[in-house]
């Protein structure tokens, strides 16, 4: 079974602060993804990566950066967090056949 883990699972941040969400996968997948989930919008792609050292902008990249230092790790960085970034964030790894999602991180920006 594919394994994707995320940390932290819950985070409360202050407006203007820096937030880093981490994701680790043990599936040896080349592709990794960051999504946010909001009621009425479903899952929206923020950034993705084809492999170590690569990051690509998804559909809603503004206000977010990503980093893929290794095959296993993919981070999402909010340099200046805003209340509009309050959401549940999911990391996933996979390919065209299937994506495996992590447990999610609930982020609240006050």
């Amino acid at each position, binding site marked *: 079974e594919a394994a994707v883990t995320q940390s932290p699972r819950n985070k409360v941040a202050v407006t203007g602060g820096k937030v880093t969400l981490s994701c680790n996968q043990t599936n040896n997948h080349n592709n990794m993804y960051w999504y946010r989930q909001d009621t009425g919008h*479903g899952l929206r792609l923020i950034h993705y990566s084809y492999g170590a050292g690569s990051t690509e902008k998804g559909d809603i990249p503004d206000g977010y950066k990503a980093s893929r230092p290794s095959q296993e790790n993919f981070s999402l960085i909010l340099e200046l967090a805003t209340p509009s970034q309050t959401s549940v964030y999911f990391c996933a790894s996979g390919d065209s056949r299937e994506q495996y999602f992590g*447990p999610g991180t609930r982020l609240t920006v006050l």
Partner: protein
Amino acid sequence: GDSVTQTEGLVTLTEGLPVMLNCTYQTIYSNPFLFWYVQHLNESPRLLLKSFTDNKRTEHQGFHATLHKSSSSFHLQKSSAQLSDSALYYCALYGSFNKLTFGAGTRLAVCP
């Protein structure tokens, strides 16, 4: 770009009745992959079923769907709803640019 439309935000059913959740898509990619993901409360999305082949029915865990490229549709069906089917269902398209595009999701609530 690619897009997926799920017309129902909420579907409420009585246990035992048939389920049909609608999904249509748009893409310029000639061989799209279509998926249904299911997300139960406080869990992460997981794959329910997928299809790459036009007009071929695919089934899993009592659910089935058929990809119809002529109408750009991939509706999810089940003959008899169970209480445990209550969840959020996402239709998704793997078309251009090596990424999934999700619909807004349909919440299915099955009542006794």
